[in-house]
């Protein structure tokens, strides 16, 4: 597994360094977005937004961006490889298809997270603001991303079979936005509760919110367990679906088709 990680890490670094304008532009955009969060509220509310509120906004936005990437990148990678004519070589590598695209998904998150951390550090230094960050919040944040990877594996499965799926990908990301924003996890009633637990990302986001909440009570043990179970469910479903799609694509002989 380490050689796969090394191979993809090196390719990611080369890509970042090879196209500096792209990398710098990405960081400028991030800087502008976070600067808007740090300073924008000051102009709107005539009072600086700080402490837990600022942390909630920054972490929420960061996790949301990572979720969008985690759920979309693997499918995009397969589409891109097919279009460029390199997918068959990738599939000839001595790794399970899930391993290859999952590692790529992890690298994509790192590629996104590293500049975010640099930009945030710069903004904190410039503004003197303080982020009320709790280490424990990293756990639900990671659970949210792992759940999104599960969805990403499902998108990769669809991309392997259907190749072109940009519109579907947009629709699914829109649906994810809904389940994250809407209080699905708190729907009343037994069925509502089941729906809330089964819906992807909703429970993990609830745990994240509770962990970051100013009151500091944190999420209940039940919510933690539900978030963990939901994460495992979506990740295993993604793993299974991509494995099945890989089998079907080889059966139909359509791996390299575009």
């Amino acid at each position, binding site marked *: 597994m380490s050689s796969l990680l090394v191979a993809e890490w*090196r390719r990611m670094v080369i890509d970042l360094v090879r196209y500096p304008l792209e990398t710098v532009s990405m960081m400028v955009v991030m800087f502008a977005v976070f600067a808007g969060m740090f300073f924008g509220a000051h102009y709107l509310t005539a009072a600086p937004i700080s402490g837990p509120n600022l942390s909630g906004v920054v972490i929420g936005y960061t996790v949301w961006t990572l979720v969008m990437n985690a759920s979309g990148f693997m499918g995009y990678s397969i589409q891109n490889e097919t279009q*460029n004519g390199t997918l068959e070589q990738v599939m000839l590598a001595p790794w399970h298809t899930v391993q290859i695209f999952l590692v790529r998904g992890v690298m994509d998150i790192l590629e996104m997270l590293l500049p975010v951390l640099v930009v945030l550090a710069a903004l904190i230094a410039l503004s003197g603001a303080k982020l009320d960050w709790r280490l424990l919040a990293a756990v639900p944040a990671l659970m949210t991303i792992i759940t999104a990877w599960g969805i990403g594996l499902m998108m990769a499965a669809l991309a392997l079979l259907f190749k072109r799926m940009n519109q579907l990908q947009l629709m699914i990301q829109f649906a994810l936005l809904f389940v994250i924003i809407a209080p699905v996890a708190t729907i009343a009633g037994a069925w509502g509760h089941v729906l809330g637990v089964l819906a992807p990302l909703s429970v993990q986001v609830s745990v994240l919110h509770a962990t970051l909440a100013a009151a500091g009570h944190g999420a209940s043990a039940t919510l933690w367990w539900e978030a963990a179970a939901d994460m495992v469910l979506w990740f295993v479903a993604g793993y299974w679906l991509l494995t099945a799609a890989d089998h079907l694509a080889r059966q139909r002989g359509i791996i390299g088709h575009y």
Partner: protein
Amino acid sequence: MLAADGLVKRFHSRTGPITAVDHISIAVAAGEVLAFLGPNGAGKTTTIKMVAGLIRPDQGRVVVDGVDVTGRPALAASRLGAVLEGSRNLYWRLTCLENLIYWGTLRRLTPAVARQRAGELLRMVDLEDRQHNSVQTLSRGMQQKLALCQALMHRPQLVLLDEPTLGLDFASAEAIKATVRQLGTEGVAILLTTHQMDVAQQLADRLAIIRAGQLVLTGRTEEVLTRYSRPVWRVTAGEAFSAGQLAAARTLGWPLEQPTPKDLLVTPPEDDPAAIYRLLDVLRPAAIRLVERHQADLAEVFQQVVSGGGEAL
């Protein structure tokens, strides 16, 4: 090194199922080059992709160096390399060296070993001075040589080459052929498909010809060419044969044609090794420039076999 046994692959189309590959069995030993030939749509690429594990056969089994490709795909993949036609095989935005290190590391080499191996291969195909150029700036021939290097990074025991010299200029094609020959001497088994019969004839130890999904001819290259050669001798003179010389040749009683005034095609008895000398005797004093027995080339064999004149196995 490769044993593909009873491979069958059917695809479903709007008009019903199509049998692309119909009970094909091929084997390639270590150090051997097998040319797998056939017209477009005969099933060559489907077969190669079944061998590579990219297409799952409906029936049959592929074993690479003792490893079942379907049962243990990752282990089998570590023992084979492929240059696939219609694929780029490389990342165009990366340099030659970066590509080789990436593909080598992806195939479980450490970066240091991959770098060393990449250097060896780039030297072998004379691309060392282009190692820092991105692939998109290379000529088609250079890209193909690099694609071959990519397939060789992890020292596979079996290499699949689908149209490796297609669209290449003379020098690039010669370089690829030289590399293939060298691989053969190093004990690598090579399964080669090509529409260029001269390339197949120069490289292949054995031939397998496929037509409409079925194997219609296999054998050692020399034996196949000999089998398809006719016992016809061409005698060419410096000037036109005289009527007297022709009449004298006809007295021998053998089938005789005169395609041009300076050429005779004669079919002497096959069991008489001295017959050709008797012919030359009666043609005296013609200025004979060339005497040769017909030797089939692969293009001729292929034409006969795929047009239905070849023997079915």
